[in-house]
């Protein structure tokens, strides 16, 4: 698993300018968090107290919002986000094994990121294309009818090897 690096000074400066724009507008907490994540890829925990004081909230409240939404991260994510479906249909058609294979392939557990920051592995409850089960979503593209061979090929291809 990847070790979390401290955000750079430049990154903190960028984040601060975002925070300043939303200052004291409590409704703006979620757009603010999304914007930071878009720019930085994640929300560094060290900036939570700054966000809180600018929004006149408690740091624990900001953390509460961040940890509530799966779309918000407090750790850097891989370049590619792999989501393995664990919905009912996918489960029936071997989704559990697919997940196991992906874990082996990437060498990380659910919610973790590979040490080269190439992949982050997540699971998802259902993506709505049960006809193609079992499914994997990589970034914005869906890969259906997964089997061990296809899983292996998927990551070879992504690796470029």
């Amino acid at each position, binding site marked *: 698993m990847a070790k979390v690096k401290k955000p750079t000074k430049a990154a903190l400066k960028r984040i601060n300018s975002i925070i300043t724009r939303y200052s004291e507008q409590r409704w703006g907490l979620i757009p603010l968090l999304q914007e930071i994540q878009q720019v930085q890829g994640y929300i560094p925990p060290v900036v939570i107290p700054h966000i809180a004081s600018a929004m006149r*909230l408690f740091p624990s409240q900001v953390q*509460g919002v961040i940890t*509530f939404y799966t779309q918000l991260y407090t750790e850097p994510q891989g370049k590619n986000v792999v989501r393995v479906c664990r919905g009912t249909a996918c489960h029936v058609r071997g989704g559990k094994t697919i997940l196991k294979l992906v874990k082996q392939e990437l060498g990380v557990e659910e919610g973790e990121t590979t040490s080269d920051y190439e992949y982050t592995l997540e699971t998802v409850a259902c993506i709505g294309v049960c006809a193609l089960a079992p499914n994997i979503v990589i970034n914005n593209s869906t890969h259906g009818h997964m089997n061990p061979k296809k899983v292996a090929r998927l990551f070879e291809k992504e690796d470029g090897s």
Partner: protein
Amino acid sequence: MEAVTITLDGVEVSGYSGMTILDLARDSGVDIPTLCHDPHLNPTGACRLCLVEDDSSGALLASCVVPIRPGMVINTRSPRVIERRKVIVQFMLASHPDSCLVCDKGNRCQLRKLASEMGIGLLDFQRLPQSAAIQDVNPFIERDLSRCILCAKCIRADQELVVEGAIDYMDRGFTAKPATLGDVPLEESACTFCGTCVAMCPTGALMEKERSYHGTTTTTVDSICPFCGCGCSISLEVKDNKVVRVKPGTKSQVNRGTLCVRGSYGYDFVHSNERLTSPLIKVDGSFQEASWEQALGHISGEFKRIKEDHGASSLAILGSSKCTNEENYLLQRLARAVLGTNNIDNGSRLYNPATRFGLGQSIGFPSTTNTIDKIEDSEVIMVIGANPTASAPAVSYAIKRAVNHRNARLLLIDPRETGLAPFANLWLRPEVGTDVVLLNELCRVIIDEKLFDEEFVTRRTDNFEELVRSLKDNTPEYAQSITGISSEDIQLAAQLLAGAQRASIVYGNGITQHINGTDNVTALANLAMLNGNVGQRGGGIFALQRENNGLGACDMGTLPDFLPGYQSLDDDQVRKGFEEHWGVDLPAEAGLTAIEMIERAATGGVKGMLIVGENPVSGFPNPSAVRDALTSLDFLVTTDLFLTETAELATVVLPAASFAEKEGTFTNFEGRVQQIHKAVEPVGDSMPDWEIILQLASAMGQSMPYSTLQQVMTEIEDLVPLYQYLADADLKIEGLGRADLESERLRARRLFKGLFPSGFGRFSPVEYNQPVGQTDNGYPFTLVSGSILYQFGSGTRSLKASRLRRFWSESWLEINEDDAEYSGYGDGDVVRVISPIGEVTTTVRVTNALPKGLLFMPVSFPESPVNKLYGVNLDPRAKAPSFKPCAVRLERINPDG
């Protein structure tokens, strides 16, 4: 309020609009179970146990959040309701550990109680275990989140009542839990261990750590916290003559379900094994146990001898700002009527007299002008020279609630970054001791910009022209050069304050404990009157009191220059009244103040002293001089809970009972008179101070005509105008509940409407004098001393509270980051702090809460007594010593010697 009638379980009941179904049901005696509801918290409907059925629509409603509407037909016990509630509890139990047998919450667990009331036995659901205990190493609170039912009472207590924000929900679904920022242990978080969440937790998820008794007690006694001047209600749980738990009192307007760490976890000094259990008489330099008869005989003999040989004025009594009103009343009667001297004062001399004089001469009323809940009604709150987070936590909660929940704006004036700084809309950091200049400049701006309340000033005050004239020479440049605050900021502050209809001014020892403390308070009173903020329903002047009964002791006339109720000694009529009542002649000449007693003891003018519950050696400036003075007395008697530094110098030491072992009343900083009740028997042979005083009076051959405390209360009520409606007997007046009486009593002290007691509020111009303790080359730093949250006063009691003692056991010195870097100091370095008067050794804490050049040391640690650094510099009118600025230098102590 509009009346609303609904049908509840087939009966028509009426409430008012805005009430919830639950409120009305409880008012009507209908029981609805809840787990997440608490009257002090906003309802959230989290636990769903309060479900009721709306008969017309068949909907199940969470009754704690649904307001009543006319014509509603509600069924609280329909089969559907009962069934749903059962299922909810079953779900909760499915994720709850089966550890009821070993869980200390025992019969106090509300989840278990509900389950057993609903007849829920074995569960059919599959069990889903939750996350386990958290390893907090603090000595106060233990968290086992496997028992958490996510009712959010702790989170809401933290955010809504205490407004600390240490915890909130983290994650969601099965992994959701209340957590600190970064999920760190409590002691590394913002938590202040106030214990409010522990008192509210319905299950065993949050428990008091290191409890002396694990079970459920059957006896609880309502009382008042004996530490600071807030006067929070507490409820003492008693088992086998021991106080084993303290919880917030439920019905108090002061603390509203909260407490602070001292109130929740500082009570065990009562059962410290260092308590005095028998009278002690010093024979050949060492104390020997004696009977009460021997001790009192010895005291009366010595006092009589000194009085005969040297006159009554060679005797003095130092009373206590910690003892009850009744005890202080008896004590001043003992001094005046039995010993025949007005040499009587109390420990609040160290912080309170500036308020008495400053407010007295301005508004004609010697203390806080409004109630604590009115702070929350303010539009603007100005906090100056006070750190209520440490010195008066309940007040800090009220201020933070006002800011966070009621949109009040906070103007903070303090060189130190206190716990209120994150809540401040404007924070000014003046140079220490320059408050008069700042306050005068605020007044000048308000007058110049015509922002003052003209009607108020014209109709209810006088001497305005004099104030205007005195401020003429002030200029923004001058104020800026003295205070170090830019004129723009001062202008902003003036506009903020003057722009509010209802503004509160809260101040504390940072104002009063200066050599010009009286001037500071007077300048504040000018400011308040200018804005019309005195004598109305919202806002006012709030003078914080360090100790539980500092105000009460003064009210009771434990003062050298006033009879009870601030009735003047010089007034023959008044004196005659007391003389008739007590049947003796009273001395007319004002006596000595506390500091003067010590000075006079050193020069031989005072020969014999009685010190009740005070520790001047540890609390007064220049302790070695105090020690010498007390040693040179012919005869010193102390009564105390412990063998304090002062008691060690005494010839006779009498063991006194603690607050939990006696009855009486305390008066809090607002002037609220509240009763304490006896929870346990006095330890050993100790006795309440009031009994000691009565017995001493009889030993002196002049018994006082009281056989019960009630008679003392009644006399106070008769003779002290501010204390009418006091005695318990009055509670029986028909149709008046306790709350009504309390407000009735308070009203006697309030200045709601009409003229000030003295006719008009009087503007008194004040001039700035350079403070003592200026830095110079030899002493480059300015040191201020102050209180901290985890200890109290001189530490006599709080250091005997085992958990408080352990949490922060030693004194320290706070120093600004840049100063530390420049001088090469780091955290934990041992330094000698040296002033022209004395020196102490302590360890360094580097902080960014202080401006450059300023140092801070806490007052509560007798091992490194900060008062050793202070000389005796008295406010000329208040006769109170300065405890704020002191010029010091630092010297590193090499750990290798």
